[in-house]
């Protein structure tokens, strides 16, 4: 028993010493100072790609590689050290934080943009505002006629993005909240297709990114707040989410330069160009 106790104490002290030591690296494993890699969310991908192109134009000799794969892949890449920046269209989960911290990784979320989703109906629809619960009931099939929410008496035609899109993911998380999308929803492959369906169908209701709004459809207030960039930024509009670039610890060196560029006025122009809401 004594032998076991002594060994346990000795090994534990060694483990604590090793774990509390700062991260280091072998001399031969030092990373190139001119290269950074990003991987992860397909929602963040257009921002990352365009920003990487522009950043490389400004900084000659610098190589920025960008890959997709999904938010989970991006965060996993930060945890296993296979990328410098992990792109994510959601906040890191408790499970991922625990996994990261256990491995000595300190994930830091750098918010680079916001993704706001507007609710739109046909121009002839008399309603101007809707609640999150009404939206959930419409898109899950509990409400099928506009008369239930004071929007005339026609049948509701729900227009949704396909389930693989990032926009659907946000919609599911913030609006459906666990409910199943109605079986008769029209599934579309792009924001433009949603817009086409809504402007051409009298009883239609759909959702799309703020960058795709036009005068050809009516935008509804959600919980009394209009879907505008200002309301997304100030947090009052509820169907919106932040987009992140995760790093291990506070960014430094070239990684910091890149993230600083993305949140700079030039980088935020790119954010707007590709259809998202700037954070500044």
């Amino acid at each position: 028993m004594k032998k076991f106790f002594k060994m346990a104490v000795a090994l534990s002290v060694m483990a604590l010493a090793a774990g509390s030591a700062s991260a280091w690296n072998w001399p031969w494993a030092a990373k190139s100072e001119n290269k950074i890699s990003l991987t992860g969310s397909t929602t963040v991908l257009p921002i990352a790609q365009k920003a990487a192109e522009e950043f490389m134009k400004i900084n000659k000799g610098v190589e920025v590689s960008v890959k997709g794969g999904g938010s989970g892949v991006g965060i996993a890449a930060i945890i296993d050290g296979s990328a410098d920046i992990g792109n994510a269209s959601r906040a890191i989960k408790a499970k991922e934080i625990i996994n990261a911290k256990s491995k000595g990784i300190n994930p830091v979320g750098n918010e680079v943009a916001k993704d706001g989703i507007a609710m739109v109906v046909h121009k002839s629809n008399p309603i101007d505002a809707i609640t999150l619960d009404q939206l959930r009931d419409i898109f899950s099939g509990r409400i099928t006629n506009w008369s239930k929410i004071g929007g005339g008496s026609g049948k509701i035609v729900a227009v949704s993005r396909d389930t693989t899109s990032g926009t659907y993911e946000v919609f599911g998380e913030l609006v459906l909240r666990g409910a199943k999308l109605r079986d008769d929803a029209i599934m579309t492959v792009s924001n433009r297709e949603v817009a086409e369906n809504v402007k051409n169908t009298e009883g239609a209701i759909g959702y799309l990114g703020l960058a795709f709004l036009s005068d050809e459809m009516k935008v509804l207030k959600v919980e009394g707040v209009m879907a505008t960039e200002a309301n997304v930024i100030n947090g009052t509009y509820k169907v919106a989410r932040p987009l992140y670039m995760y790093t291990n610890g506070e960014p430094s060196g070239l990684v910091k330069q890149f993230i600083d560029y993305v949140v700079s006025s030039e980088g935020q122009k790119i954010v707007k160009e590709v259809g998202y809401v700037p954070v500044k």
Partner: protein
Amino acid sequence: MRNVLRITAAAVLSLAISAGVFAAEPETKVYGYNWFRYTLGYDNAKEKTSAFEVKRTYVRVKTTGEGYEGALTLDYENSAAQTGVNFGTWVKNAYVDLKSLPLLVDAGMTVRVGLQGVPFGTIDTWEYPLIEKAPEDKLKLVDSADYGVTLRGYLPMALGNFEAGILSGSGYKKAEANLDKSVVASLNIVPITGIYVRGSYLGHQIGEDQQVNGQPSSLAKYADRKSVVLGFGSSPISGFVEALESKDQKSSGKSGIGQALAAYLGVEIIDAISAHAMYMTSNPDTLRVRDEKNLYAIGVNYDVTEKVMLQLNYQMEQDKVGGGSSPVTTNLWMAQTKWSW
């Protein structure tokens, strides 16, 4: 072979049906692993082993739908114990995580029902950086998977996570015939980045299930199992120290108490190459003499491609260490490819 095909077909079919029942468009992933191993072994009695084997093949299916996640793992095991059959087939995992149960969903808790990994010590987190099994698996103290229901959740501020539940106590390779159940509980705390502590308990009251239908049962396997793991990670090194204690029924000349201490260390040398070492000393019964065992294992892992890893291991096992005549020493040299697909 026909049985293997039948089981595979039935599993795939049942998964497809369940996917259809749960939600309109769940996301399903099919993936797996295959381990091909060469073992060269000899002991001090000059007995030799030289064997090629496809040690294991896992076929995994994961389905994620609204409010649930289901997983199925088929384990094709190439075991020397199999006679006349090349591969034994086990269903290793077949569980559903229920993620949107009332009251629990707001607390971020899930309930896992079915055949699942046992949340104990390092057995459910061991990713085989060495070819050898996790300490409690190697010592056959705990089954790696079992039938049951567990509650899983997180501590506030992502300070850690916990699992607690009821399991059959018979393990995944046996149909349950015992009356009593095992209880399992694990608490993992990450107080600071780079350090974690996990305490686990698995208890099985040996009592009623000594008899099944009036007949003595050989299934009463567990008494008490305790584990404390102190782990660390600070790139490029990681590792843990684990202390284990087992308590079984006393008998003549036996205390029923066993102890073990294990230490593992892994070091990333470059992106594709890492080195690993494990030491374990165990005393299966504190009253018996010359039943202690030591295990030393070292290995190098090389990622040949993104999907293929080569593992080269040497391990030495010393049996009956506690004094008297020299221990039985077994030396194993192993080379293994792990193909992920």
